[in-house]
């Protein structure tokens, strides 16, 4: 976890609000899912910005280096970030 900043707490992606930015520190999940995330551009060390959060536990839309990705709330909970 070379991207981890020891002074900042790692929290789930779902704790962010629309417009907030953070650094991804861990993807969680199994190998297959992690690979899928990475091939979509969602990797450790990247900066994510939350674009929208759908109501009623709907998906989160985020932006990672210009790619927008919609991701279910449950999956997003397992992705850990550090606020910047």
């Amino acid at each position, binding site marked *: 976890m070379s991207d981890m900043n020891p002074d900042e707490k790692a929290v789930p992606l779902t704790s962010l609000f629309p417009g907030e930015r953070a650094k991804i520190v861990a993807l969680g999940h199994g190998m297959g899912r992690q690979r*899928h995330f990475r091939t979509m551009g969602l990797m450790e060390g990247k900066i994510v910005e939350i674009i*929208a959060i759908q109501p009623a536990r709907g*998906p989160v839309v985020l932006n990672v280096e*210009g790619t927008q*990705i*919609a991701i*279910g709330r*449950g999956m997003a909970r397992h992705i850990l970030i550090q606020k910047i």
Partner: protein
Amino acid sequence: MKKISLMGCPNVGKSVVFSRLTGVNVISSNYPGTTVDFTKGNTRIGVEKFELIDVPGTYSLEPTSKAEEVARSMLQEGDVVIDVVDATHLERNLYLTLEILERKKPTIVALNLWDETKHIGIDIDVDKLEKLLDVPVVPTCAITGEGIKELGSKLRDAKPSKTIEPMPEEERWLKVGEIVREVQVVHHRHHTIWERIADTTVKPVTGIPIAIITIFLTFLFIIEIGNWIIEHLMDPIFYNYYGPWIVSVVNSFSPEGLLHNILIGKSTIESLDFTQSFGLLTTGLYVPFDMVLPFVITFYFMLSLLEDVGYLPRLAVLVDTGLHKVGLHGSAIVPTILGFGCNVPGALATRVMETGKQRFIAATLMAIAVPCMAQSAMIFGILGRYGLKWILIVYCTLFVLYIFIGLMLKKIVRGESPELLLEVPPYRKPDVSTLLKKTWTKAYGFLAEAVPFVILGVFIVNLLYESGVIRVLSTVFSPVLTTLLGLPEGAIGALIMGFLRKDIAIGMLLPLGMSAQQLTISCIILTAYFPCIATFVVLLRELGIRDMLKATGLMILVSLAVGTSMRLILIGI
């Protein structure tokens, strides 16, 4: 003939590269049986002829869905691979590129969306990338056609890479990082104003109203323009020119009798009857060409437009929460919308769903509650004359069925319902020629598939009536039809025809002299009770015989139940 596989991640503009390479006047045919999987087309580069296969987009060769499995097997088929890479997202696209190169097929890389890299401040050293990958790399901009010629001429230089050897996944990611650091420089930039505007379509507060307006305008376009084509083009052709001509031709050699009836029914020059005569050359052609084709064209035009602009993924995000309640997720909106065109591609598109449970639910709900365009066109056609109210009753009932059965299936079907994970691509300006080509291919596909079946259907109708079989069947099924559903005995003919073609089946309701209530009930039952034969065959292959039996049982139960309840609501006891 050499085969070229066109591969790449989703949303890299692969289809545009495809249509650029194949040109306008090629016959690009859908691969038999797997219509939505991949398109094939022939192309001539220099003097050599090639067969080009447009493989569905995939992020990696380790498949996570059935559609990606197809992509992997298609890689093996090609003699040469064109790997289309999104130059604006080099890092994540290179993973698939490395995987392809590891297979040691002759490969050439198209660095597509090249013009956009400049707008957003990305510099890529093409020569260095070429050296590192050890295969030709050609910058392209498929939408303007830039670089496509060079891609074609460099095709002969495609070769297996010597520098990229098979490696484990972790190492591949490191390699990707290494290459990107060497060839790419990214200048920092901010969100543009256009991106901010684009974001409003995916934020719930603004996105949901925009989605409702978009869907409403889409339907308005399909119906209004479709009607316009019928009124100003198709009807005049049929009633002023074709009708009188065909009647006089048939009269000249067969003024009456069996052959006359089978060919043109009871039509005369004075009273042309295209809808109720049930002649092969009257109703058999009028239904597909006049009543259905105009709506098929407007439907596929709008669908292609929404698809090419990039709106569908946003719609998927917005409806995701709702579809979760029925055990699906946002991506299921695509097979559903396709189903409104034709259930066959809709059934195939359920492959985008990850699990068997989701595929079963998506396919069953579509077969029960989503009428295809041919069917919808006929529902508008025969119920429209009684007023919009009846059409709305049909569609609202089907919508309620979709939700109700979905809620139930989510509970009882075993398996997983994973969550949405979907890339939302940037909006793109659609390419008009690609758009028209897509629309034409789909409309042509409809005609090629529907016309023979409709004519066969009309022929069978004639046989059933002329031979008296229909009278026997009417008596047998009359308890269910009249007592339970409140329909005339003759409706059995339509229900039988519904196995073959739904449009003709609905057309058969007309001569029965039913009330608006009875017609409404019949339209609902005809939608829900069984898919047409073409859809059935595809579903059987996709779901397997056991799941298909379950789905079929459900369809019959549901249509009897909903038919009986609608009878009680609309007609009374």
